[in-house]
């Protein structure tokens, strides 16, 4: 496999390799000359603005967007102002910074999204230079103005402009500058001749890189690593200084022996790099510098640009697209000539095995003897991830798989997920897709983001296939892609509402967790209300439907959707909205057709707007409820007249409702109230508001028997209750004389046992005895027992020859004192005929 190392170059301890990613699909006449170029990291798109310097208004430059493989994505003539800089955001949007500080935002397919300004100060003094940078907070823009001041926005989605302090002694444009992200803050590092300054929000601090070669009189170029951790400076003496970006530590310094300003410089590091290294580009020459004195030189035929990546540098020229990186450890171990690393041996073993040679066994033995087989497998798997050529990947994975056969308990996850990842990566690296993502980059950016990127490119099918293949949970995978697809679909003006709605529903039908309301919102925003309504029909979450429906002024529909959801709060929300939107009549009419909403609104009114409640009942001719309403209202009144007036209204309503009973009872109440007031005035007794029963009890307790009697007759109180009432009232008063008189007034409808019991309750045994005789035979035993007359009870029980009564009496006898009685009772019990 000698060819694998063919493109390797040694630099100090390690190797560097340049891999061709694509032959560019574009056809550029003059290559990249005279072009503003911006290529997004992570194998993102490339934007080109040709001939941007020509100031003649007649010649409109063309803005073109390509995939990393050079396939056109968009192209349109640039009609706005002079563009100083192009750049990409983290979400694949193109930023075009104009001379006046206006930033225009386009999506990756050339659709205009929005624009924003970098402030008055910038537009007045014009943009001199711009840098677009990425930080944990998003994409930022830094501008150096004609007034030699820096203005910075850390996140273009939430613009907060910061004007940095002045750099002292700055006469003309600084020789170079860069944006750093340190301590959760974006800072600018400026070189002005030999001096270096760090600008943060508050101050401008001069700094000196430790150990910078003294020959240097000025810094001509600088670059920051992808992770913002490292800084490289190029001096006019041709020295490259590399160190940490906090300028506390020097890593190396190399003399390039080339004086003169480079076109570009970039870090060429990878996570777990063996040495710091940077790439410097001049016209026709590319230099890799590391720790050692030597450098690697590449000849460049064409104008090129460097795109720093997490694990290397991409080089884009008019015809080719390459990746330059330090050879990853695993690859080096395996492919280095004469390597005896376990992975290399395993690869060899597998090769021999394929040739059906017994040498395979020898190699395997060698690895196994050192018990490094699992290490070997791991190396092969890891190396496969770093290889670009599918053939090489396959060879390494086959070797790994072969090695695995001789291991028990080797966890398969790493192997399986690498196979899957590579399959996905090879698919997106394909020329037609053009995302040359390395495995390291893929892991860093995550699958979620990759899916997003595919979606931005409208590669819906591929995105879905990837999700399905990697078994991403539906709602964050397939469903999400479908939603984006649908949002795009609804904006296609040429198709009819029906066709689109149908297409969307068919595709999305069984996908879980789709937010149809989001799609509908998109449709509404592009002016297709009818389509939006059709789409909303599919939305299972009514909560999501309702706000949009309200926004579209489809309130009746919003109301029925809210009701359908069962979420009463949502219903209330719509009802309150309608209340403010409609006139009262229409509002009531709408409620009338929606009983659920109506009863909720009534509940609301009951607590908040009593009068409206009345209007509602009136509208419905609900006389029964109106009656109830007045009854309730009457209790809120202090004055008796008002109270009675309300009750009168209630009576009228009850009659209208044909509720005879309620009307009559209410009239009774009015009568009672009047009576109570009259008596209150005459007798000075607190009565108003009492129930009939309580009124009479009070009257009897103060001796107003006549009045009580009158009420009893007037209100046709049942005899029984009157007797009970009077009995209790008199006993309470201990008016025994009156009680006796009462008992004799006529035959008691409640019998006489209550008389006995009530007297006992008031501890008057003597009075109680008077009534025992009058008690009916069935209750006599009970009466005797109540007054404690066991003998009498026994007598009565025996007379009635009732077994259970005899038993009751027996249970009350004590065997010692009532000896004779017990005997008699027992005898009587025996003679009771058994049924």
């Amino acid at each position, binding site marked *: 496999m000698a060819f694998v190392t063919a493109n390797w170059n040694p630099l100090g301890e390690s190797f560097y390799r340049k891999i061709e990613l694509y032959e560019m699909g574009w056809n550029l006449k003059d290559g990249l000359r005279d072009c503003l170029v911006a290529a997004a990291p992570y194998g993102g798109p490339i934007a080109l603005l040709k001939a941007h310097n020509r100031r003649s208004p007649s010649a409109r430059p063309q803005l073109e967007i390509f995939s990393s493989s050079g396939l056109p994505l968009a192209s349109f003539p640039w009609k706005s102002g002079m563009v100083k800089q192009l750049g990409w955001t983290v979400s694949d949007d193109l930023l075009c910074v104009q001379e006046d500080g206006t930033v225009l935002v386009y999506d990756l397919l050339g659709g205009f999204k929005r624009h924003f300004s970098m402030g008055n100060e910038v537009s007045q003094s014009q943009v001199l230079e711009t840098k677009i940078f990425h930080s944990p907070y998003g994409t930022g823009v830094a501008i150096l103005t004609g007034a030699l001041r820096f203005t910075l926005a850390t996140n273009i989605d939430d613009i907060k402009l910061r004007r940095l302090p002045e750099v002292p002694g700055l006469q003309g444009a600084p020789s170079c500058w860069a944006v750093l992200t340190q301590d959760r803050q974006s800072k600018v590092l400026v070189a002005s001749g030999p001096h270096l300054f760090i600008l943060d929000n508050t101050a401008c601090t001069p700094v000196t890189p430790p150990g910078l070669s003294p020959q240097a009189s000025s810094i001509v170029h600088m670059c920051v690593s992808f992770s913002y951790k490292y800084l490289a400076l190029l001096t006019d003496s041709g020295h490259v200084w590399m160190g940490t970006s906090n300028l506390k530590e020097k890593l190396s310094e190399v003399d390039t022996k080339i004086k003169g300003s480079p076109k570009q410089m970039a870090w060429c590091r990878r996570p777990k790099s063996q040495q710091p290294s940077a790439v410097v580009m001049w016209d026709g020459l590319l230099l890799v510098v590391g720790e050692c004195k030597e450098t690697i030189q590449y000849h460049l035929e064409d104008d090129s640009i460097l795109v720093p990546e997490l694990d290397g540098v991409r080089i884009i020229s008019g015809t080719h697209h390459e990746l330059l990186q330090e050879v990853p450890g695993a690859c080096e171990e395996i492919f280095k000539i004469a390597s005896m690393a376990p992975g290399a041996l395993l690869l060899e073993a597998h090769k021999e095995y394929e040739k059906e040679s017994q040498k395979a066994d020898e190699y395997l033995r060698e690895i196994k003897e050192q018990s490094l087989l699992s290490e070997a497998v791991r190396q092969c798997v890891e190396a496969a991830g770093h290889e670009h050529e599918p053939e090489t990947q396959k060879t390494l994975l086959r070797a790994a798989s072969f090695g695995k056969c001789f291991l028990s308990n080797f966890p398969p996850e790493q192997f399986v997920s690498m196979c899957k990842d590579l399959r996905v990566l090879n698919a997106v690296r394909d020329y037609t897709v053009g995302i040359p993502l390395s495995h390291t980059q893929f892991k860093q950016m995550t699958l979620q983001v990759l899916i997003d990127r595919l979606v931005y490119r409208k590669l819906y099918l591929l995105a879905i296939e990837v999700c399905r293949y990697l078994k991403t949970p539906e709602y964050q995978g397939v469903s999400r892609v479908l939603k984006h697809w649908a949002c795009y679909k609804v904006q296609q003006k040429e198709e009819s509402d029906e066709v689109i709605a149908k297409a969307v529903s068919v595709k999305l039908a069984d996908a*879980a967790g789709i937010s149809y309301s989001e799609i509908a919102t998109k449709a509404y925003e592009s002016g297709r209300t009818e389509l939006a309504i059709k789409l909303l029909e599919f939305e299972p979450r009514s909560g999501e439907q309702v706000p949009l429906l309200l926004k579209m002024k489809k309130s009746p529909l919003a109301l029925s959707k809210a009701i359908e959801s069962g979420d009463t709060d*949502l219903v*209330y929300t719509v009802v309150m909205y309608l209340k403010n939107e409609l006139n009262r009549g229409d509002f009531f009419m709408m409620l009338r057709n929606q009983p659920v909403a109506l009863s909720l609104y009534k509940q609301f009114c009951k607590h908040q707007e009593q009068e409206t409640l009345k209007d509602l009942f009136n509208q419905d001719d609900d006389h029964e409820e109106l009656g109830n309403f007045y009854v309730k209202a009457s209790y809120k009144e202090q004055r008796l007249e008002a109270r009675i007036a309300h009750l009168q209204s209630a009576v009228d309503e009850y009659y209208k409702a044909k509720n005879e009973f309620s009307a009559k*009872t209410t009239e009774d109440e009015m009568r009672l109230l009047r009576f109570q007031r009259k008596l209150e005035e005459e007798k000075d007794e607190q009565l108003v508001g009492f129930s009939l029963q309580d009124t009479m009890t009070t009257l009897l307790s103060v001796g107003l028997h006549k009045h009580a009697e009158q009420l009893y007759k007037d209100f046709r109180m049942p005899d029984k209750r009157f007797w009970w009432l009077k009995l209790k009232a008199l006993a309470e008063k201990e008016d025994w004389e009156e009680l006796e008189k009462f008992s004799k007034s006529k035959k008691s409808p409640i019998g006489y046992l209550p008389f006995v019991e009530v007297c006992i309750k008031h501890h008057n045994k003597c009075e109680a005895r008077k009534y025992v005789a009058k008690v009916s035979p069935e209750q006599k035993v009970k009466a005797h027992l109540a007054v404690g007359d066991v003998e009498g009870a026994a007598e009565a029980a025996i007379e009635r020859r009732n077994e259970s009564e005899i038993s009751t009496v027996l249970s009350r006898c004590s065997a010692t004192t009532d000896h004779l009685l017990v005997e008699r009772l027992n005898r009587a019990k025996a003679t009771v005929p058994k049924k």
Partner: protein
Amino acid sequence: MASHLFCGRVNLNILREAARKDLREFLDKCSGSKAIVWDEYLTGPFGLIAQYSLLKEHEVEKMFTLKGGRIPSAAVKNIVFFVRPRLELMDIIAENVASEDKLKPREFHILFVPRRSLLCEQRLKEKGVLNSFTNIDEYILDLIPYDGDLLSMESESSFRECYLENDQTSLYHAAKGLMTLQALYGTIPQIFGKGECARHVANMMLRMKREFAGSHTQILPVFDTLLLLDRNVDLLTPLATQLTYEGLIDEIYGITNGYVKLPPEKFAQKKQGEGGKDLPTEPKKLQLNSAEELYAEIRDKNFNAVGAALSKKAKIISAAFEERHNAKTVGEIKQFVSQLPHMQAARGSLANHTSIAELIKDITISEDFFDSLTVEQEFMTGVDTDKVSTYIEDCIAQKDPLIKILRLVCMQSVCNNGLKQKVLDYYKKEILQTYGYKHILTLKNLEKVGLLKPQSTMRNNYPTIRKTLKLWMEDANEQNPNDISYVYSGYAPLSVRLTQVLARPGWRSIEEVLKILPGPHFEERQQVPTGLHKKLLRCCRSRRGPL
């Protein structure tokens, strides 16, 4: 602390833990010291989820009750309102916030239980205080694990809301709660139901299932069937006097949120020499749940069987204490000592329940109780349900508590499928004259919800229901019950019977009765995620065991 939740067939502590986690997360969102201002209604239900200690761990230093005016001063950084989404409460909060000291402002937060409300937020906005809140959040507390075999929404007014006010908010919460339950315990494959509200809940659940589709993790279903029953399918059961031990405690003293307050006299610590000098005046508050071994054993017994159980337990405990005389070796003594705390707890528990049982017995042996029960049982067996009951008449004449009267009258109405207009009007008039005219609205409300109704032309179909579902069992065995009728000493609760029939042989056998009972009956099946389906089958097979 929540041991009562482990003892059932399903570990309900998962649900409680999920709820506690949410609570902690919210509290941590309001960083720094805090005071909670409580909607008083919520303290009970919250007690079932978390004690004060949990709140304290998350820097809750003070607790206040929500009321108008200014919030008492407290040196805390945050004021957190725990409230139900009610407009009247919003007004109070607005007042609280408005009268806050402008010089020493504290951060405000609202936690809505069980759900945020746009309406309430709108109200706060109108009052100009919405922006004063740093966090506005919701705490979803629908189904609260109440005991090892019981979840409750602790929503006491939901019957009133659903049937009287046509406000089905609580049904929405019920559906949401059941969704949470399914998220934790797996999709319930079968849903049965009876009644309008049950239908509504099931519809919402099916709908929500579509909403949540895809976001569900795959859990093997723990519950195989869900049965939804409307309260108005079985109005009779709650009207009857409960006769189990727990039921009687509830009838007499009322159990709220798992606690009962008892008269203190019986629980005075009897210390020798002091002779009960100072009797406690505060009611004795006891928590009642299955964590207490003895209570778990007797709670569902018919009260008539409780005495025997208690004395048996007493013997076991004293025997256990006697064991100490047999403990000879050091090892034996050590073992005895190690069991002491448990035994002492058991003895304390026995003393408590003996006292409670005595309190209850005083009431159950009274003639009043007996008479009332007799009338109830007459109604339930269909005796004289069509005429005015002398007993009720007498009770009204004596002005017994209104609730007792209403329960009896409603029961008569239910057991007679409505009362003759004459009888109904008579009762109503009696009640109004005795307890006051204002109850005209009470009576109307009872009629609106169907607890009280005039007889229609239809014949009384209660006897059909009673016979088909065997609602009355003559020979209910209270001591060693073999049928649920023991809980009411004869009456078997209708809802329990419906559940029994559903389990075997199925509702198809009682179509006639189901038609008589109000509302539709239905059956829904929910698809269990594929993959789980096979597992489920395997489980079922292994449960059956080898044949």
